[in-house]
């Protein structure tokens, strides 16, 4: 009887869609990845920031840094839990949505995921110790238990990006009439896309964390709270983000030049280059129309110069491959421009911070105390969401630019999707659950910034006498 009811329910929802709904699978994967990637970045960056302020707090004995460490650790506990579960969903989804990929190539890219699993394990273990043993260990020893979290966080980012890099630069296997005849998992993991992609990603994680954390305090300072606690909460992460930003621009340049060698069609999609040639301009914005990128601002010879440092450098165009192998030019190009634009904005904010510092030294006044700094703080508050926008756009460039391939040049996305009916229903359920989770996460984090007593152990709510700055 329950069998019949369930069958009815499933077939009712499934009948609305064709079997093996590619669009639904794509939407679900894209949505859950886009969601997780923000949490994953915070998982890499926040431990580093927290350890930094904790270390300085211990060294200098300044209470505002000690309080910051506790508050950030508390947020870290919440964010890590949500990041861990949303990451677990992804490993389910790889099988649920893309069994074609996993059944055939699961063994080729299993290794970096296995290593990532171990790194994540270490992260979870030491996070448990770090959060819950705060008052059971002497300060320096406690600080040490945080170090593995940072190392493992960076390592797991590296491993997981290696797996994604393999999808862009598949290596380490031989196909004979569609059958895998030889597999070298190490070669698959250490593929040419892995270094530029992982460096770009890890720096992005640091920037997202830094600017997002700083923007919380920028908002508070705009509301007039310019005490030592809020100033430290703003300057530490913002300064850190400002230091990382120029490195990120360099890493991005490296990643783009990597594409011109290894994935020229992705670069052609990103830049809207249709015809192979030299003296290719760099187009800023614009819209793909009748086989050309129109209405954009063209910088003569720009792309050729960027790619090969010479205006005569040849850049390959989309017409080199059949029409059905083109990535979606409009979307990828727009995402790329937004990423670069936002990155430049973040860099400029770093420079502005330096100027403010120089000015305050020269005049002998404290930074950001006078009223005239309101425009800076307003833009600084936007830098956090801006970094997230840049992150999502950068990720879109990588993933959309790889279309229509799930494994570049080897397997199409449409050949990997689960042919079972009902994926659309799954998408709706996932959307509802994620909406609820987003709402709850934001709500809880907002509460965390306001709750006045900060418990001794960052996650234990049973101690209420912690003093507040």
């Amino acid at each position, binding site marked *: 009887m329950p069998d019949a009811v369930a069958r009815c329910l499933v077939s009712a929802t499934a009948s609305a869609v064709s079997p093996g709904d590619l669009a639904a699978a794509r939407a679900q994967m894209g949505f859950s990845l886009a969601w997780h990637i923000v949490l994953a970045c915070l998982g890499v960056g926040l431990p580093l920031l927290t350890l930094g302020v904790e270390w300085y707090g211990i060294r200098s004995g300044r209470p505002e840094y000690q309080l910051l460490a506790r508050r950030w650790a508390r947020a870290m506990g919440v964010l890590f839990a949500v990041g861990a579960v949303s990451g677990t969903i992804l490993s389910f989804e790889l099988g649920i949505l893309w069994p074609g990929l996993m059944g055939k190539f699961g063994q080729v890219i299993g290794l970096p995921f296995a290593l990532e699993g171990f790194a994540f394990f270490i992260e979870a273990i030491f996070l448990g110790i770090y959060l819950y043993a705060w*008052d059971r260990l002497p*300060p320096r020893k406690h600080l040490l238990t945080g170090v593995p979290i940072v190392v493992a966080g960076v390592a797991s980012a590296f491993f997981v990006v290696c797996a994604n890099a393999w999808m862009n630069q598949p290596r380490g296997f031989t196909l004979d009439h569609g059958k895998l005849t030889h597999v070298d998992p190490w070669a698959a993991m250490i593929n040419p896309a892995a270094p530029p992609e992982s460096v770009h990603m890890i720096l992005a994680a640091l920037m997202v964390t830094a600017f997002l954390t700083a923007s919380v305090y920028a908002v508070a300072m705009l509301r007039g709270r310019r005490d030592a606690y809020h100033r430290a909460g703003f300057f530490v992460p913002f300064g850190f983000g400002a230091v990382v930003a120029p490195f990120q621009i360099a890493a991005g340049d490296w990643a783009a030049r990597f594409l011109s060698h290894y994935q020229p069609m992705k670069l052609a999609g990103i830049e809207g280059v249709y015809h192979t040639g030299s003296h290719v301009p760099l187009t800023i914005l614009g819209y793909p129309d009748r086989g050309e990128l129109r209405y954009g601002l063209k910088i003569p010879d720009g792309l050729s110069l960027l790619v090969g440092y010479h205006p005569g450098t040849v850049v390959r165009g989309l017409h080199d491959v059949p029409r059905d192998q083109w990535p979606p030019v409009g979307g990828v190009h727009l995402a790329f421009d937004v990423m670069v634009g936002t990155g430049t904005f973040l860099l400029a904010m770093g420079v502005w911070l330096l100027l403010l510092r120089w000015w305050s030294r020269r005049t002998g006044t404290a930074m950001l105390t006078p009223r005239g700094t309101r425009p800076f703080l307003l833009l600084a508050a936007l830098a956090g969401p801006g970094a997230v926008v840049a992150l999502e756009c950068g990720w879109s460039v990588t993933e959309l630019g790889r279309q229509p391939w799930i494994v570049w040049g080897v397997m199409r996305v449409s050949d990997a999707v689960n042919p079972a009916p009902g994926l659309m229903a799954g998408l709706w359920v996932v959307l509802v659950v994620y909406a609820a*989770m987003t709402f709850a996460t934001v709500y809880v984090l907002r509460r965390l910034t306001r709750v006045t007593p900060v418990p001794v152990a960052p996650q234990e709510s049973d101690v209420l006498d912690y003093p507040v700055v």
Partner: protein
Amino acid sequence: MIADVMLAVMWVGLTCYALFGGADFGAGFWDLLAGRGRRGGRRRKLIEHSIGPVWEANHVWLIFVLVMLWACFSPVFAAVLSTLYIPLTLTALGIIARGAAFAFRKASTEMWQQRLFGGCFALSSVITPLFLGAVAGGVASGRVPPGIAEGDTVTSWINPTSALGGVIAVLTCAHLAAVYLCADAVRAGDDVEAADFRRRAVASGLACGIVALAGIAVLDQDAPVLFHGLTHRALALVVVGAVAGLADVALLVRGRYVLARGAAALAVAAILWAWGVAQYPNMLVPSTTVSDTASHTSVLIASLISVGVGLLVLTPSLWLLYATFQRTPERGGPGGGRPGAGGEPGRAV
């Protein structure tokens, strides 16, 4: 041969997930039935205190098993996840709701929020093992054929063996948690709760036994291959599981909680291995074997190396984790943390 080693390693991982992660799920089960008012609050504190530092690490065993399955037996991973995608999606959502709600509850201060997130945590702690057990039942009863989405997306997990698997999974988790919590309550000096969890442990242990006995008839009818394996090749393990289960209940009645922990863990592990041995060498019943689905030797070796290196780093870390929270003196037990205990790092202002 090396594929068998890898399979054994995965089964060890699955056992760890059942024993550690299972106890966390069970803790959620008891959280759901903790009751109202101050009494329920105290019980929830004990539960929260007991799993708080460890649940995240315990959860990672599942990821380990999943990743090893797809790296070393990719076709099995693809077949199981594509056919059973409905209960697995629900499992995944249960995992999300559970982990997030647990962290949210810890971070919230108001009663209604703690109730909401607590309810979410507890409910998903019951739902998740239920679906995981159903998935195991689908695989064990031979309802997942090789290939992508070749099995029935509904009857592969709504069937007698899956129902049995789901119920046993929930009851086993509940029992493990109750047994662990007995000893935790004693260590926290809470004899009332200890006696209470002992009653719950005995009841859930007996329920496991009764369902398992009834399950024999179900498997005979619904999963003949598994039944034959359990009554022949895996018989010794089944007997070990039964004896350990009886010993576990006897030890509980006599108040020997630490020993009962061991017996309960042994019983669960024995039953899990009995399933594995009964089904071996089939990865997918009735005829898809380990050698049919194993990855290339290079992949198996690489995976074993990563497991070896991983264990070298993990073992001391896990030891440190459990040692920090199991052996050091408790901070005054649940609900009564010494305010500002040793507050060296944070004497702010």
